[in-house]
Protein backbone atom coordinates (compact mmCIF):
# COMPACT_ATOMS: atom_id res chain seq x y z
CA UNK A 1 0.00 0.00 0.00
CA UNK A 2 1.20 3.54 -0.74
CA UNK A 3 2.87 5.42 2.12
CA UNK A 4 0.04 7.94 2.36
CA UNK A 5 -2.56 5.22 2.91
CA UNK A 6 -2.28 3.85 6.41
CA UNK A 7 -4.17 0.52 6.27
CA UNK A 8 -2.61 -2.78 7.26
CA UNK A 9 -3.79 -5.99 5.61
CA UNK A 10 -5.61 -6.85 8.82
CA UNK A 11 -7.36 -3.45 8.84
CA UNK A 12 -8.59 -3.98 5.32
CA UNK A 13 -9.89 -7.44 6.09
CA UNK A 14 -11.77 -6.22 9.15
CA UNK A 15 -13.28 -3.40 7.18
CA UNK A 16 -14.35 -5.73 4.37
CA UNK A 17 -16.09 -7.93 6.88
CA UNK A 18 -17.84 -4.98 8.60
CA UNK A 19 -19.15 -3.87 5.22
CA UNK A 20 -19.94 -7.40 4.10
CA UNK A 21 -17.77 -7.58 1.00
CA UNK A 22 -15.01 -9.90 -0.12
CA UNK A 23 -13.28 -7.70 -2.64
CA UNK A 24 -12.94 -4.00 -3.21
CA UNK A 25 -14.38 -4.45 -6.70
CA UNK A 26 -17.82 -4.97 -5.19
CA UNK A 27 -17.84 -1.30 -4.18
CA UNK A 28 -17.27 -0.27 -7.79
CA UNK A 29 -19.60 -2.82 -9.37
CA UNK A 30 -22.21 -0.14 -10.13
CA UNK A 31 -19.97 1.65 -12.64
CA UNK A 32 -21.39 0.67 -16.03
CA UNK A 33 -19.10 -1.52 -18.10
CA UNK A 34 -18.81 0.91 -21.00
CA UNK A 35 -17.53 3.81 -18.86
CA UNK A 36 -15.26 1.73 -16.68
CA UNK A 37 -11.57 2.55 -17.06
CA UNK A 38 -9.88 -0.77 -17.62
CA UNK A 39 -6.34 0.18 -18.53
CA UNK A 40 -3.72 1.98 -16.52
CA UNK A 41 -2.92 5.64 -16.71
CA UNK A 42 -0.04 6.51 -18.97
CA UNK A 43 1.94 7.80 -15.98
CA UNK A 44 4.97 6.69 -14.00
CA UNK A 45 4.60 4.16 -11.21
CA UNK A 46 4.79 5.70 -7.77
CA UNK A 47 8.16 7.33 -7.11
CA UNK A 48 9.92 7.54 -3.76
CA UNK A 49 10.79 10.92 -2.23
CA UNK A 50 14.37 10.83 -3.44
CA UNK A 51 13.26 10.18 -7.01
CA UNK A 52 10.58 12.86 -6.87
CA UNK A 53 13.03 15.41 -5.53
CA UNK A 54 15.50 14.57 -8.28
CA UNK A 55 12.82 14.83 -10.95
CA UNK A 56 11.49 18.21 -9.78
CA UNK A 57 15.03 19.48 -9.24
CA UNK A 58 15.97 18.48 -12.77
CA UNK A 59 13.03 20.40 -14.20
CA UNK A 60 13.50 23.41 -11.92
CA UNK A 61 17.13 23.78 -12.87
CA UNK A 62 16.17 24.30 -16.49
CA UNK A 63 15.18 27.75 -15.24
CA UNK A 64 17.86 30.41 -15.10
CA UNK A 65 17.60 31.82 -11.64
CA UNK A 66 20.91 33.64 -11.44
CA UNK A 67 19.11 36.74 -12.72
CA UNK A 68 18.66 40.13 -11.09
CA UNK A 69 15.13 41.25 -11.94
CA UNK A 70 14.51 44.75 -13.27
CA UNK A 71 11.01 43.74 -14.32
CA UNK A 72 7.70 44.23 -12.51
CA UNK A 73 4.49 44.80 -14.51
CA UNK A 74 2.26 43.21 -11.88
CA UNK A 75 4.76 40.86 -10.16
CA UNK A 76 7.45 42.32 -7.94
CA UNK A 77 10.70 41.11 -6.42
CA UNK A 78 10.51 42.42 -2.85
CA UNK A 79 11.96 41.71 0.57
CA UNK A 80 10.17 38.78 2.24
CA UNK A 81 10.79 38.51 5.98
CA UNK A 82 11.71 34.96 6.98
CA UNK A 83 8.95 34.98 9.59
CA UNK A 84 6.46 34.48 6.75
CA UNK A 85 7.59 31.17 5.31
CA UNK A 86 8.08 29.79 8.80
CA UNK A 87 4.71 30.83 10.19
CA UNK A 88 2.59 30.12 7.12
CA UNK A 89 4.04 26.59 7.03
CA UNK A 90 2.53 25.77 10.40
CA UNK A 91 0.17 22.88 9.78
CA UNK A 92 -2.55 24.41 11.94
CA UNK A 93 -2.80 27.21 9.36
CA UNK A 94 -1.83 25.43 6.14
CA UNK A 95 -3.93 22.28 6.53
CA UNK A 96 -7.05 23.95 7.93
CA UNK A 97 -10.33 24.08 6.03
CA UNK A 98 -12.37 27.23 5.42
CA UNK A 99 -13.41 28.55 8.85
CA UNK A 100 -17.04 27.46 8.70
CA UNK A 101 -16.79 26.01 12.25
CA UNK A 102 -15.67 29.15 14.07
CA UNK A 103 -15.12 27.37 17.39
CA UNK A 104 -12.10 25.54 15.96
CA UNK A 105 -10.96 28.16 13.44
CA UNK A 106 -10.31 31.27 15.51
CA UNK A 107 -6.70 31.36 14.28
CA UNK A 108 -7.74 31.70 10.64
CA UNK A 109 -10.60 34.06 11.44
CA UNK A 110 -8.48 36.36 13.57
CA UNK A 111 -5.75 36.81 10.98
CA UNK A 112 -8.42 37.56 8.37
CA UNK A 113 -9.83 40.21 10.72
CA UNK A 114 -6.33 41.64 11.24
CA UNK A 115 -5.82 41.66 7.46
CA UNK A 116 -9.11 43.49 6.94
CA UNK A 117 -8.11 46.02 9.61
CA UNK A 118 -4.69 46.64 8.06
CA UNK A 119 -5.94 46.87 4.48
CA UNK A 120 -8.81 49.24 5.29
CA UNK A 121 -6.38 51.50 7.12
CA UNK A 122 -3.80 51.34 4.35
CA UNK A 123 -6.33 52.20 1.62
CA UNK A 124 -8.52 54.41 3.79
CA UNK A 125 -11.68 52.43 3.09
CA UNK A 126 -14.40 51.14 5.44
CA UNK A 127 -14.60 47.47 4.55
CA UNK A 128 -12.28 44.80 3.15
CA UNK A 129 -13.16 41.26 2.22
CA UNK A 130 -11.00 38.25 3.07
CA UNK A 131 -9.30 38.42 -0.38
CA UNK A 132 -9.89 37.47 -4.03
CA UNK A 133 -7.83 35.26 -6.37
CA UNK A 134 -5.68 37.98 -7.96
CA UNK A 135 -5.95 41.59 -9.08
CA UNK A 136 -7.30 40.72 -12.52
CA UNK A 137 -10.26 38.73 -11.23
CA UNK A 138 -10.81 41.27 -8.43
CA UNK A 139 -11.12 43.91 -11.15
CA UNK A 140 -13.65 41.79 -13.05
CA UNK A 141 -15.60 41.40 -9.80
CA UNK A 142 -15.46 45.19 -9.31
CA UNK A 143 -17.06 45.64 -12.74
CA UNK A 144 -19.88 43.28 -11.80
CA UNK A 145 -20.29 44.91 -8.40
CA UNK A 146 -20.58 48.38 -9.95
CA UNK A 147 -23.13 47.08 -12.45
CA UNK A 148 -25.08 45.37 -9.72
CA UNK A 149 -25.08 48.39 -7.40
CA UNK A 150 -26.09 50.91 -10.09
CA UNK A 151 -28.27 48.57 -12.16
CA UNK A 152 -26.29 49.76 -15.19
CA UNK A 153 -24.21 47.81 -17.63
CA UNK A 154 -21.31 49.84 -18.96
CA UNK A 155 -17.85 50.18 -17.42
CA UNK A 156 -15.18 52.68 -18.47
CA UNK A 157 -11.53 51.70 -17.96
CA UNK A 158 -8.56 53.96 -18.47
CA UNK A 159 -5.95 52.30 -20.65
CA UNK A 160 -3.34 53.07 -18.01
CA UNK A 161 -4.80 50.13 -16.05
CA UNK A 162 -2.62 47.00 -16.42
CA UNK A 163 -3.54 45.38 -19.74
CA UNK A 164 -3.77 41.91 -18.18
CA UNK A 165 -6.45 43.15 -15.80
CA UNK A 166 -8.36 44.86 -18.61
CA UNK A 167 -8.30 41.69 -20.70
CA UNK A 168 -9.80 39.65 -17.88
CA UNK A 169 -12.53 42.26 -17.36
CA UNK A 170 -13.25 42.09 -21.09
CA UNK A 171 -13.56 38.30 -20.98
CA UNK A 172 -16.02 38.51 -18.10
CA UNK A 173 -17.91 41.30 -19.87
CA UNK A 174 -18.25 39.28 -23.06
CA UNK A 175 -19.98 36.43 -21.22
CA UNK A 176 -21.75 38.17 -18.34
CA UNK A 177 -23.03 40.72 -20.83
CA UNK A 178 -21.59 44.09 -19.85
CA UNK A 179 -19.77 46.63 -21.96
CA UNK A 180 -16.14 47.54 -21.27
CA UNK A 181 -14.95 50.77 -22.86
CA UNK A 182 -11.21 51.34 -22.76
CA UNK A 183 -10.30 55.02 -22.96
CA UNK A 184 -6.89 56.00 -24.40
CA UNK A 185 -4.57 57.87 -22.05
CA UNK A 186 -2.65 61.09 -22.54
CA UNK A 187 1.09 61.22 -21.76
CA UNK A 188 0.88 57.98 -19.79
CA UNK A 189 -1.88 59.29 -17.54
CA UNK A 190 -5.66 58.82 -17.50
CA UNK A 191 -7.39 61.27 -19.82
CA UNK A 192 -9.83 62.60 -17.24
CA UNK A 193 -11.35 65.17 -19.59
CA UNK A 194 -12.23 62.56 -22.18
CA UNK A 195 -13.71 60.26 -19.56
CA UNK A 196 -15.82 63.07 -18.10
CA UNK A 197 -17.35 63.67 -21.51
CA UNK A 198 -18.30 60.00 -21.75
CA UNK A 199 -19.89 59.83 -18.32
CA UNK A 200 -23.65 59.68 -18.23
CA UNK A 201 -26.38 57.73 -16.50
CA UNK A 202 -25.71 54.60 -18.51
CA UNK A 203 -22.21 54.19 -17.05
CA UNK A 204 -21.93 52.10 -13.89
CA UNK A 205 -18.43 53.25 -13.08
CA UNK A 206 -14.90 54.18 -14.04
CA UNK A 207 -11.71 52.25 -13.30
CA UNK A 208 -8.34 53.93 -12.89
CA UNK A 209 -5.05 52.73 -11.39
CA UNK A 210 -2.31 54.22 -9.22
CA UNK A 211 0.56 53.74 -9.68
CA UNK A 212 -0.67 52.94 -13.15
CA UNK A 213 0.73 50.33 -15.52
CA UNK A 214 3.55 52.72 -16.51
CA UNK A 215 4.42 53.29 -12.86
CA UNK A 216 2.91 56.80 -12.80
CA UNK A 217 1.22 58.01 -9.63
CA UNK A 218 -2.26 59.16 -10.60
CA UNK A 219 -4.78 61.29 -8.76
CA UNK A 220 -8.26 59.97 -9.45
CA UNK A 221 -10.17 62.45 -7.30
CA UNK A 222 -11.64 64.35 -10.24
CA UNK A 223 -12.78 61.10 -11.86
CA UNK A 224 -14.47 59.98 -8.62
CA UNK A 225 -16.26 63.30 -8.30
CA UNK A 226 -17.44 63.18 -11.90
CA UNK A 227 -18.69 59.62 -11.37
CA UNK A 228 -20.67 60.61 -8.31
CA UNK A 229 -22.35 63.45 -10.22
CA UNK A 230 -24.05 60.88 -12.46
CA UNK A 231 -24.49 58.35 -9.62
CA UNK A 232 -21.79 56.12 -11.07
CA UNK A 233 -19.02 54.55 -9.01
CA UNK A 234 -15.26 54.92 -8.97
CA UNK A 235 -12.97 51.90 -8.70
CA UNK A 236 -9.26 52.44 -8.14
CA UNK A 237 -6.63 49.74 -8.63
CA UNK A 238 -3.75 50.25 -6.20
CA UNK A 239 -0.39 48.78 -5.34
CA UNK A 240 -0.71 48.24 -1.56
CA UNK A 241 2.98 48.96 -0.94
CA UNK A 242 2.73 52.31 -2.71
CA UNK A 243 -0.37 53.17 -0.65
CA UNK A 244 1.95 53.66 2.35
CA UNK A 245 3.38 56.80 0.72
CA UNK A 246 1.03 57.99 -2.05
CA UNK A 247 -2.47 59.46 -1.79
CA UNK A 248 -4.73 56.74 -0.44
CA UNK A 249 -7.56 55.44 -2.59
CA UNK A 250 -10.13 56.42 0.03
CA UNK A 251 -8.92 60.03 0.03
CA UNK A 252 -9.63 60.05 -3.70
CA UNK A 253 -13.26 59.19 -2.94
CA UNK A 254 -13.16 55.75 -4.42
CA UNK A 255 -16.15 53.47 -3.93
CA UNK A 256 -14.24 50.26 -4.63
CA UNK A 257 -10.54 49.50 -4.35
CA UNK A 258 -8.87 46.41 -5.82
CA UNK A 259 -5.33 45.24 -6.39
CA UNK A 260 -2.81 42.53 -5.80
CA UNK A 261 -1.05 42.13 -2.47
CA UNK A 262 1.74 40.05 -4.01
CA UNK A 263 4.23 42.81 -3.06
CA UNK A 264 3.35 42.12 0.58
CA UNK A 265 5.45 39.06 1.29
CA UNK A 266 4.37 36.73 -1.50
CA UNK A 267 7.05 35.22 -3.76
CA UNK A 268 7.07 35.63 -7.56
CA UNK A 269 6.47 31.91 -8.10
CA UNK A 270 5.84 32.30 -11.84
CA UNK A 271 2.71 34.35 -11.34
CA UNK A 272 0.85 32.64 -8.51
CA UNK A 273 -0.60 32.01 -6.07
CA UNK A 274 -0.97 35.76 -5.47
CA UNK A 275 -3.45 37.73 -3.44
CA UNK A 276 -6.24 39.79 -4.93
CA UNK A 277 -7.95 42.17 -2.55
CA UNK A 278 -11.14 44.21 -2.65
CA UNK A 279 -12.39 47.00 -0.42
CA UNK A 280 -15.41 49.23 -0.42
CA UNK A 281 -17.43 51.74 1.55
CA UNK A 282 -19.85 50.98 4.35
CA UNK A 283 -22.66 51.95 1.99
CA UNK A 284 -21.77 49.24 -0.53
CA UNK A 285 -20.68 46.64 2.03
CA UNK A 286 -23.48 44.22 1.23
CA UNK A 287 -22.66 44.27 -2.48
CA UNK A 288 -19.06 43.22 -1.86
CA UNK A 289 -18.30 39.68 -3.10
CA UNK A 290 -16.20 37.13 -1.23
CA UNK A 291 -15.79 36.07 2.38
CA UNK A 292 -15.83 38.64 5.16
CA UNK A 293 -14.87 38.09 8.80
CA UNK A 294 -16.56 39.96 11.65
CA UNK A 295 -16.02 40.46 15.36
CA UNK A 296 -18.64 39.13 17.76
CA UNK A 297 -18.96 37.26 21.06
CA UNK A 298 -19.47 33.67 22.01
CA UNK A 299 -22.20 32.57 24.42
CA UNK A 300 -19.85 33.10 27.36
CA UNK A 301 -19.30 36.71 26.27
CA UNK A 302 -15.76 36.14 25.05
CA UNK A 303 -14.41 37.86 21.98
CA UNK A 304 -14.84 35.69 18.91
CA UNK A 305 -14.55 36.00 15.15
CA UNK A 306 -16.89 34.56 12.54
CA UNK A 307 -17.56 34.69 8.81
CA UNK A 308 -20.37 37.15 8.44
CA UNK A 309 -22.75 38.76 5.93
CA UNK A 310 -22.88 35.31 4.38
CA UNK A 311 -26.33 35.85 2.88
CA UNK A 312 -24.53 37.61 -0.03
CA UNK A 313 -22.68 34.46 -0.98
CA UNK A 314 -23.25 31.68 -3.51
CA UNK A 315 -23.83 28.92 -0.96
CA UNK A 316 -26.94 30.78 0.21
CA UNK A 317 -28.00 32.90 -2.77
CA UNK A 318 -27.15 30.33 -5.48
CA UNK A 319 -28.06 31.79 -8.91
CA UNK A 320 -28.98 35.14 -7.33
CA UNK A 321 -25.55 35.67 -5.71
CA UNK A 322 -23.54 38.76 -6.69
CA UNK A 323 -20.58 36.53 -7.53
CA UNK A 324 -19.75 32.84 -7.84
CA UNK A 325 -16.56 33.16 -5.79
CA UNK A 326 -16.27 30.54 -3.07
CA UNK A 327 -12.67 30.37 -1.81
CA UNK A 328 -10.26 33.11 -0.84
CA UNK A 329 -6.45 32.99 -0.94
CA UNK A 330 -6.40 32.53 2.81
CA UNK A 331 -2.86 31.32 3.40
CA UNK A 332 -1.59 34.28 1.40
CA UNK A 333 -3.80 36.54 3.52
CA UNK A 334 -1.77 35.24 6.45
CA UNK A 335 1.46 35.97 4.57
CA UNK A 336 0.39 39.54 3.84
CA UNK A 337 -0.82 40.06 7.41
CA UNK A 338 2.51 38.91 8.83
CA UNK A 339 4.26 41.07 6.25
CA UNK A 340 2.34 44.19 7.20
CA UNK A 341 2.80 43.62 10.93
CA UNK A 342 6.50 42.78 10.51
CA UNK A 343 7.09 45.96 8.53
CA UNK A 344 4.75 47.88 10.81
CA UNK A 345 4.11 51.56 10.87
CA UNK A 346 7.71 52.61 10.21
CA UNK A 347 8.97 49.80 8.02
CA UNK A 348 6.28 49.92 5.36
CA UNK A 349 6.95 53.60 4.71
CA UNK A 350 10.71 53.01 4.74
CA UNK A 351 10.38 50.18 2.22
CA UNK A 352 7.98 52.09 -0.05
CA UNK A 353 10.24 55.12 0.02
CA UNK A 354 13.29 53.03 -0.89
CA UNK A 355 11.41 51.84 -4.00
CA UNK A 356 10.70 55.44 -4.91
CA UNK A 357 14.27 56.61 -4.30
CA UNK A 358 16.04 53.75 -6.09
CA UNK A 359 13.75 53.80 -9.13
CA UNK A 360 14.37 57.54 -9.52
CA UNK A 361 18.10 57.04 -9.12
CA UNK A 362 18.03 54.34 -11.84
CA UNK A 363 16.02 56.45 -14.28
CA UNK A 364 18.23 59.47 -13.78
CA UNK A 365 21.28 57.37 -14.58
CA UNK A 366 19.79 55.62 -17.60
CA UNK A 367 18.66 58.83 -19.28
CA UNK A 368 22.20 60.18 -19.14
CA UNK A 369 22.88 57.63 -21.92
CA UNK A 370 22.13 59.23 -25.25
CA UNK A 371 20.49 56.08 -26.56
CA UNK A 372 17.78 56.17 -23.89
CA UNK A 373 15.13 58.76 -23.14
CA UNK A 374 12.38 59.12 -20.59
CA UNK A 375 8.94 58.61 -22.15
CA UNK A 376 6.55 60.18 -19.61
CA UNK A 377 7.19 63.26 -17.51
CA UNK A 378 4.78 62.49 -14.65
CA UNK A 379 6.16 61.26 -11.34
CA UNK A 380 6.24 57.53 -10.69
CA UNK A 381 6.63 54.97 -7.87
CA UNK A 382 8.97 52.06 -8.69
CA UNK A 383 8.46 51.59 -12.43
CA UNK A 384 9.20 53.86 -15.37
CA UNK A 385 9.26 53.71 -19.17
CA UNK A 386 12.28 54.54 -21.28
CA UNK A 387 12.54 54.47 -25.06
CA UNK A 388 15.67 53.10 -26.60
CA UNK A 389 17.30 53.80 -29.93
CA UNK A 390 18.59 50.23 -29.83
CA UNK A 391 16.44 47.27 -30.78
CA UNK A 392 14.86 45.62 -27.71
CA UNK A 393 16.09 42.18 -28.84
CA UNK A 394 19.68 43.42 -28.61
CA UNK A 395 19.12 44.82 -25.13
CA UNK A 396 17.43 41.64 -23.97
CA UNK A 397 20.25 39.45 -25.23
CA UNK A 398 22.92 41.61 -23.68
CA UNK A 399 21.21 41.84 -20.27
CA UNK A 400 20.16 38.19 -20.04
CA UNK A 401 23.66 37.08 -20.97
CA UNK A 402 24.92 39.18 -18.07
CA UNK A 403 22.41 37.85 -15.54
CA UNK A 404 19.94 40.70 -15.61
CA UNK A 405 16.26 40.20 -16.26
CA UNK A 406 15.33 43.17 -18.46
CA UNK A 407 12.20 45.28 -18.13
CA UNK A 408 9.04 44.47 -20.05
CA UNK A 409 9.01 45.38 -23.73
CA UNK A 410 5.96 47.54 -24.47
CA UNK A 411 6.66 47.59 -28.21
CA UNK A 412 8.45 50.22 -30.27
CA UNK A 413 11.58 49.72 -28.11
CA UNK A 414 9.83 51.19 -25.09
CA UNK A 415 10.80 49.35 -21.93
CA UNK A 416 9.03 49.28 -18.56
CA UNK A 417 11.74 48.91 -15.89
CA UNK A 418 11.10 48.18 -12.23
CA UNK A 419 13.48 48.94 -9.37
CA UNK A 420 12.52 47.71 -5.92
CA UNK A 421 14.10 48.23 -2.50
CA UNK A 422 16.05 45.00 -3.04
CA UNK A 423 18.20 46.48 -5.79
CA UNK A 424 21.58 47.67 -4.57
CA UNK A 425 23.61 50.54 -5.98
CA UNK A 426 25.97 47.93 -7.46
CA UNK A 427 23.14 46.14 -9.27
CA UNK A 428 21.68 49.37 -10.65
CA UNK A 429 25.10 50.53 -11.72
CA UNK A 430 25.65 47.20 -13.45
CA UNK A 431 22.42 47.66 -15.42
CA UNK A 432 23.52 51.17 -16.28
CA UNK A 433 26.95 50.14 -17.50
CA UNK A 434 25.61 47.22 -19.55
CA UNK A 435 23.14 49.55 -21.27
CA UNK A 436 25.97 52.02 -21.78
CA UNK A 437 28.02 49.40 -23.59
CA UNK A 438 25.35 49.07 -26.28
Amino acid at each position, binding site marked *: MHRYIPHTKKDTEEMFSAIGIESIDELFADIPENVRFKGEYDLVRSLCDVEVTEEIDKIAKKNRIDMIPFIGAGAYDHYIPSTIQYLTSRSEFATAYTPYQPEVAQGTLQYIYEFQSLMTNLCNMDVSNASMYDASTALAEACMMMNNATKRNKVIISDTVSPNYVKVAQTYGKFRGFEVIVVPSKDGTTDAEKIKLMLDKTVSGVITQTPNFYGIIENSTAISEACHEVKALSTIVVNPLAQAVVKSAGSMQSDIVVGDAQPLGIPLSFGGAYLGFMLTTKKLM*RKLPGRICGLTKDIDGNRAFVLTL*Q*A*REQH*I*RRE*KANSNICSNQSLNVLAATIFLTTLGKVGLIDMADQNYQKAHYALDKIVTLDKFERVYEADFFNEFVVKSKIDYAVIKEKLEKNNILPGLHLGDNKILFCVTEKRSATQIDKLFSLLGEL
Partner: protein
Amino acid sequence: MEIKEGLLYSTDHEWIQVEGNIAAVGITAFAQEQLGEIVFVELPTIDEEVKQEDTFGTVESVKAASDIIAPVSGKIIEVNETLEDSPEIMNDNPYGAWIAKIELSDAGQLDGLMDAAAYAEFIK
Protein backbone atom coordinates in the same frame (compact mmCIF):
# COMPACT_ATOMS: atom_id res chain seq x y z
CA MET B 1 -48.18 29.99 14.26
CA GLU B 2 -49.98 33.30 14.34
CA ILE B 3 -52.06 34.24 11.32
CA LYS B 4 -53.76 37.55 11.78
CA GLU B 5 -57.39 37.90 10.79
CA GLY B 6 -58.39 40.73 8.50
CA LEU B 7 -55.19 40.69 6.43
CA LEU B 8 -54.62 39.33 2.95
CA TYR B 9 -51.83 36.84 2.21
CA SER B 10 -49.70 35.92 -0.79
CA THR B 11 -48.19 32.56 -1.74
CA ASP B 12 -44.78 34.19 -1.10
CA HIS B 13 -45.68 34.36 2.62
CA GLU B 14 -46.36 38.06 2.71
CA TRP B 15 -49.22 39.78 4.47
CA ILE B 16 -51.03 42.75 2.93
CA GLN B 17 -53.08 45.26 4.87
CA VAL B 18 -55.26 47.41 2.66
CA GLU B 19 -56.44 50.86 3.67
CA GLY B 20 -58.24 52.66 0.87
CA ASN B 21 -55.87 52.63 -2.07
CA ILE B 22 -52.76 51.82 -0.02
CA ALA B 23 -51.39 48.34 0.70
CA ALA B 24 -48.86 47.82 3.52
CA VAL B 25 -46.72 44.72 2.96
CA GLY B 26 -44.78 42.59 5.46
CA ILE B 27 -43.74 38.99 5.91
CA THR B 28 -45.77 36.46 7.87
CA ALA B 29 -44.93 34.79 11.16
CA PHE B 30 -44.40 31.59 9.20
CA ALA B 31 -41.90 33.30 6.85
CA GLN B 32 -39.83 34.83 9.67
CA GLU B 33 -39.68 31.51 11.46
CA GLN B 34 -38.44 29.77 8.32
CA LEU B 35 -35.74 32.41 7.87
CA GLY B 36 -34.52 32.45 11.47
CA GLU B 37 -32.88 35.49 13.04
CA ILE B 38 -33.31 38.34 10.58
CA VAL B 39 -30.19 40.48 10.28
CA PHE B 40 -30.81 42.81 7.36
CA VAL B 41 -33.60 44.18 5.20
CA GLU B 42 -32.97 45.81 1.84
CA LEU B 43 -35.82 48.25 1.36
CA PRO B 44 -37.19 49.48 -1.97
CA THR B 45 -36.86 53.15 -2.92
CA ILE B 46 -39.73 55.58 -2.61
CA ASP B 47 -41.50 56.41 -5.88
CA GLU B 48 -40.31 53.16 -7.45
CA GLU B 49 -43.00 51.59 -9.64
CA VAL B 50 -43.33 47.87 -8.99
CA LYS B 51 -45.24 45.23 -10.90
CA GLN B 52 -46.91 42.27 -9.25
CA GLU B 53 -44.33 39.44 -8.88
CA ASP B 54 -41.34 41.86 -9.14
CA THR B 55 -38.61 41.54 -6.55
CA PHE B 56 -38.48 44.83 -4.66
CA GLY B 57 -36.33 44.05 -1.64
CA THR B 58 -34.57 41.35 0.32
CA VAL B 59 -34.73 39.94 3.82
CA GLU B 60 -31.55 38.30 5.09
CA SER B 61 -31.00 36.06 8.04
CA VAL B 62 -27.70 34.52 9.14
CA LYS B 63 -28.09 31.48 6.91
CA ALA B 64 -30.70 32.48 4.33
CA ALA B 65 -31.81 35.24 2.03
CA SER B 66 -35.29 35.75 0.71
CA ASP B 67 -36.55 38.13 -1.94
CA ILE B 68 -39.53 40.33 -1.16
CA ILE B 69 -41.96 39.88 -4.02
CA ALA B 70 -44.49 42.58 -4.82
CA PRO B 71 -47.91 41.03 -4.10
CA VAL B 72 -49.60 43.82 -6.08
CA SER B 73 -48.58 46.41 -8.65
CA GLY B 74 -48.22 50.06 -7.81
CA LYS B 75 -45.95 52.82 -6.60
CA ILE B 76 -43.87 52.62 -3.41
CA ILE B 77 -44.98 55.59 -1.34
CA GLU B 78 -43.39 54.79 2.02
CA VAL B 79 -40.77 52.44 3.42
CA ASN B 80 -40.24 51.37 7.03
CA GLU B 81 -36.80 52.79 7.79
CA THR B 82 -36.90 51.42 11.34
CA LEU B 83 -36.07 48.05 9.81
CA GLU B 84 -32.69 49.30 8.63
CA ASP B 85 -31.43 49.58 12.20
CA SER B 86 -33.67 47.04 13.89
CA PRO B 87 -34.41 44.22 11.46
CA GLU B 88 -35.06 41.90 14.43
CA ILE B 89 -38.50 43.43 14.94
CA MET B 90 -39.58 41.32 11.97
CA ASN B 91 -38.92 38.30 14.18
CA ASP B 92 -40.46 39.81 17.30
CA ASN B 93 -43.60 41.27 15.75
CA PRO B 94 -43.98 40.20 12.11
CA TYR B 95 -47.44 41.71 11.67
CA GLY B 96 -46.28 45.04 13.06
CA ALA B 97 -43.16 45.23 10.92
CA TRP B 98 -44.45 46.45 7.60
CA ILE B 99 -41.75 46.82 4.93
CA ALA B 100 -43.30 49.15 2.39
CA LYS B 101 -46.57 50.80 1.45
CA ILE B 102 -47.71 50.50 -2.14
CA GLU B 103 -50.24 52.76 -3.83
CA LEU B 104 -52.34 50.28 -5.78
CA SER B 105 -52.53 50.63 -9.53
CA ASP B 106 -54.86 47.67 -9.97
CA ALA B 107 -57.11 46.99 -6.99
CA GLY B 108 -58.46 43.97 -8.85
CA GLN B 109 -55.22 42.13 -8.01
CA LEU B 110 -56.35 41.93 -4.39
CA ASP B 111 -58.94 39.35 -5.39
CA GLY B 112 -56.13 36.93 -6.21
CA LEU B 113 -54.76 36.99 -2.65
CA MET B 114 -55.71 34.66 0.21
CA ASP B 115 -57.59 35.48 3.38
CA ALA B 116 -56.39 34.25 6.78
CA ALA B 117 -58.25 30.95 6.55
CA ALA B 118 -56.97 30.20 3.06
CA TYR B 119 -53.39 31.04 4.12
CA ALA B 120 -53.70 28.78 7.17
CA GLU B 121 -54.64 25.98 4.80
CA PHE B 122 -51.79 26.95 2.43
CA ILE B 123 -49.03 26.55 5.02
CA LYS B 124 -50.38 23.31 6.46
